[in-house]
């Protein structure tokens, strides 16, 4: 898990309003804050889809259910008043810091589940379908740099994921490690679904 701290300046256009807009109203608009951010960023892999182990005979076809596993919804929170940075500004700044295409607030990992069929042509299998992705969790402090902006400081938190990290695969608990996927999500799925005495589990490094 990597943790980094950095400051990012986001140029923001001034936006004035006669009444205090709701957070939903202003989620996509620029604030009058011109915020500077300090970040504390953590990345980690998690499973988003995990099917039960299914025994498939030689020549059989596995109908993948792609059951969502502990669904996660992308979210941005912030403290502060009407001049606090918008969700869009926060996410843009986090994207600039991480370089990753991040899921927009309100997006659920359950929408990423992908169905498929897999035919095992040569041998039987004890199959486990999985999907995983790399989450990006960040806490931040900000201060407004625009003249007259206030309150001029606050904090917040972002939970999202790298949209390019979405990984899917299929484990065969009957097959040794070298014949199985070797990604982090594969390891997580193996630990949760393959029996401890299965060839896949016994040949783990």
């Amino acid at each position, binding site marked *: 898990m990597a943790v980094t701290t950095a400051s990012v300046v986001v140029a923001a256009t001034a936006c004035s309003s006669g009444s205090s807009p709701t957070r939903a109203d202003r989620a996509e608009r620029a604030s009058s804050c011109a915020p500077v951010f300090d970040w504390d960023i953590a990345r980690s892999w998690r499973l988003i889809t995990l099917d039960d182990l299914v025994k498939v005979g030689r020549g059989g076809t596995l109908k993948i259910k792609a059951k969502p596993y502990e669904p996660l919804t992308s979210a941005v929170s912030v403290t502060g008043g009407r001049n606090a940075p918008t969700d869009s500004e926060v996410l843009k700044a986090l994207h600039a810091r991480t370089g990753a295409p991040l899921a927009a607030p309100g997006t659920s990992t359950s929408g990423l589940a*992908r169905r498929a069929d*897999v*035919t095992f042509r*040569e041998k039987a299998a004890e199959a486990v379908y999985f999907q995983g992705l790399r989450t990006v969790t960040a806490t931040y402090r900000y201060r407004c740099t625009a003249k007259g902006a206030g309150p001029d400081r606050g904090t917040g938190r972002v939970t999202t994921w790298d949209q*390019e990290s979405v*990984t899917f695969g299929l484990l065969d608990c009957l097959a040794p490690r070298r014949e199985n*996927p070797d990604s982090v*999500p594969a390891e997580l799925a193996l630990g949760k679904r393959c029996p401890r005495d299965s060839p896949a589990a016994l040949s783990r490094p």
Partner: protein
Amino acid sequence: MSHLARRALITVAAMSAVTATTVTGTAQAVDGDQWTCHHASSASPNDKGGRDSYVTHVNPDNGQRAGMNFTASSEKVLQWNDSKDNVDFYANFYSGNRIVLTWHWNMDGHEKDLTHDFDRPEGQKVQLEVTHWQPSKGGCMDKGGVT
């Protein structure tokens, strides 16, 4: 991925170490003709031993198309359907000269592109295939990919 980006990707692939490109169909198409098939593979620039590949299946009547791309370095699979028709996608994985595993997906017309890192053991030959829901439209295949 936009049409332009996709075409650029295909052009780059076609220009570098292409092993096979086959185009079927006629220049003056009539409704009901088979879709044309464009496919190729090339050595991965970032994954030693890996090979990238793609297939593009094109309706000669209106230019609408669907396809699949495999990138060896990240084992990334991109599936896209810019046609109005339902299309099937297959990825066959080999052990030696035998197909051991066949993945099958389906996409409705104009469904959103799907990109995933496809987690497979290294060194497996990959065969991509895209077929229209009507068998008479033919199919489009490339056997040149390697994980």
